[in-house]
């Protein structure tokens, strides 16, 4: 995971509620076996509309996506996170996020900032000018835009991983002794009950 402590970027406003993972990357593009190559199919259906925000030159090179409620709902495909990362985004701000999407975002260093819907809408209306920069300070958990600041919650372990560039699999893997102890306990349950075949 790449180390990130600050994000400075103008905002891409995509104020649609319930953006599901099928919208982000439709199923027909999921047959690849690599973790890249999805960006060109990102938001394929919406991109067909000329007015769609990602078709506007103003929002190229943006690092912060501002979206509607329940972002990332639907399927568990991590491809949705890979796709958003491939578009260059480092953070998504929205009123709420779906659970599996949130977990997948953490595994890929994509910061999700929860902010209330009125504030999101307010920022979106002013986000159409490129010179309005948004600053995210991950250490202090503050996002600043224009003259407004918003303090956001973050999972402390994810914050540590993100600001130190650490992969959480390394941490989990370092816990193998404890995992083995639990397995012996669990295996006893299975040996007693299931004949060792879970």
């Amino acid at each position, binding site marked *: 995971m790449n180390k990130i402590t600050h994000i400075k970027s103008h905002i891409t406003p995509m104020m649609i509620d*319930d953006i599901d993972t099928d919208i982000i990357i439709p199923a027909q593009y999921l047959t690849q076996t690599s973790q890249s190559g999805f960006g060109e199919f990102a938001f394929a259906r919406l991109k067909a509309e000329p007015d769609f925000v990602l078709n506007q030159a103003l929002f190229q090179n943006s690092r912060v996506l501002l979206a509607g409620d329940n972002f990332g709902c639907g399927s568990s495909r991590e491809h949705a996170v890979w796709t958003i990362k491939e578009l260059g985004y480092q953070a998504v701000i929205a009123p709420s996020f779906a659970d599996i999407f949130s977990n997948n975002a953490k595994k890929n260093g994509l910061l999700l900032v929860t902010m209330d819907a009125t504030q999101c809408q307010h920022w979106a209306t002013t986000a159409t000018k490129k010179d309005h920069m948004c600053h995210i300070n991950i250490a202090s958990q503050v996002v600043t835009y224009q003259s407004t600041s918003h303090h956001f919650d973050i999972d402390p372990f994810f914050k540590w991983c993100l600001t130190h560039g650490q992969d959480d699999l390394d941490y989990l*893997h370092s816990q193998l002794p404890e995992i083995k102890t639990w397995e012996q306990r669990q295996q006893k349950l299975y040996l007693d009950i299931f004949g060792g075949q879970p």
Partner: protein
Amino acid sequence: MKHNIIEKIWQQHLIKSNSGFPDILGIDFALIHEVTSAQAFQQLADKHIPIRHPERLLATVDHSIPTRDDREQVHDPIAANQMATLRNNCQEHGIKLYDMGSGHQGIVHVIGPELGVTQPGMTLVCGDSHTATHGAFGALAFGIGTSTLAHVMATGALLMHPPKVMRVHFEGELAANCSAKDMVLHLIAQLGVGGATGHVIEYTGDAVKSLSMEQRMTLCNMSIECGAMAGVVAPDETTFAYIFGKPHAPKGQQWDLAVEHWRSLTSDSDCHYDAITAIQLDSVKPMVTWGTNPAQASHIDDQIPKTAHSHDALAYTRLTGSDQLAGTSIDWAFVGSCTNGRIEDLRVVADVLKNNTIAQHVTMYIVPGSEQVRKQAINEGLDAIFKQAGASFRQPGCSMCLAMNDDVVPAGARCISTTNRNFIGRQGTGSITHLASPLTVAHSAIHGHISAAMTNTINQQEHCNE
């Protein structure tokens, strides 16, 4: 201390709980398929981390495989490569793979239960959001992303914060022409697509207890469509009877010990829930979606809501000028998926199609959830009924649920479907999807328009123990 069933399963699988860190949760079993696993194997290969417990993994191909009789011929070279990658990975790491023609290939969430792999009290994961299906057995089962799958393959555990628990209590009795599909669509319509986010749902009430295992699977399957990562039904005699004798089920004395353990997996009376929702079933009628997410559903003969919120969805589904769903002409009918691709679902459909023919302008696909379901259907003569009615009875897989293979609803065509998502373009670019129960789909196929049964004409209890 009183605990609900989810807390009990969590405690039994909690390896470590440290302040400031997510919990480390032991995972008993993982199911894998071709679409979300390749990158997990690659991640581990890149880090030179071996797979710790290949015996706690089971693989199959389901998402992108064709359902033609000559399905071994995969025309899309990228999809073919993805399947070949799974085969190579399974062979290299000693993972059991139920491939096409093995006798047990099928949708992951259909084969887990039918093999007896899914058992009460276990933690089970899969790179698929409909893993919630297995909660019907009193297991804590949920969908994970590819990186988390890599974590599970590397360690047999994952990192996670304990979920909140919502109790959904179904009160009253379900009408004879309704099923678990109508129950869950009704629930999702009430809660909204994000209404249970952050929660695991425990389904309770006599109406749940009286459901067959396959109906409970339908109920739990769609938990994710209201945002819940899992849905659970406490195990009972119906559960034990279903598991008994399955290939992976405990046998002999171990069976008795297992059942004794499983009986402890119920929520204590007066235990804590983070949220409680009561759903009254007496007024529920057959449910059909009118919009572009599963919460946009109503009774088949209700007025379609015309609000600012429904405007865009109705424009897409071309129902802006319609008053109600009943009577809307359809082009396609689809029966299948991890939601409704099991033998009981096929029996319900066959019972309606028997001595009937589907409307001339309708194309109907019936895709069994597994090779076992297909075999059973043929043994019972259902294939002949489907054929005589004019439906195409196909080879097992996910098929038209997500249109990753050749089974695609054409642009502009309207499909009534037993699947779980009616997102824009889900069944093919430009396709229109109406989610409904197998009974409603079968009736609609005959009439050529959205139509519900007056009464449920099949007695499912007769079949549920077969």
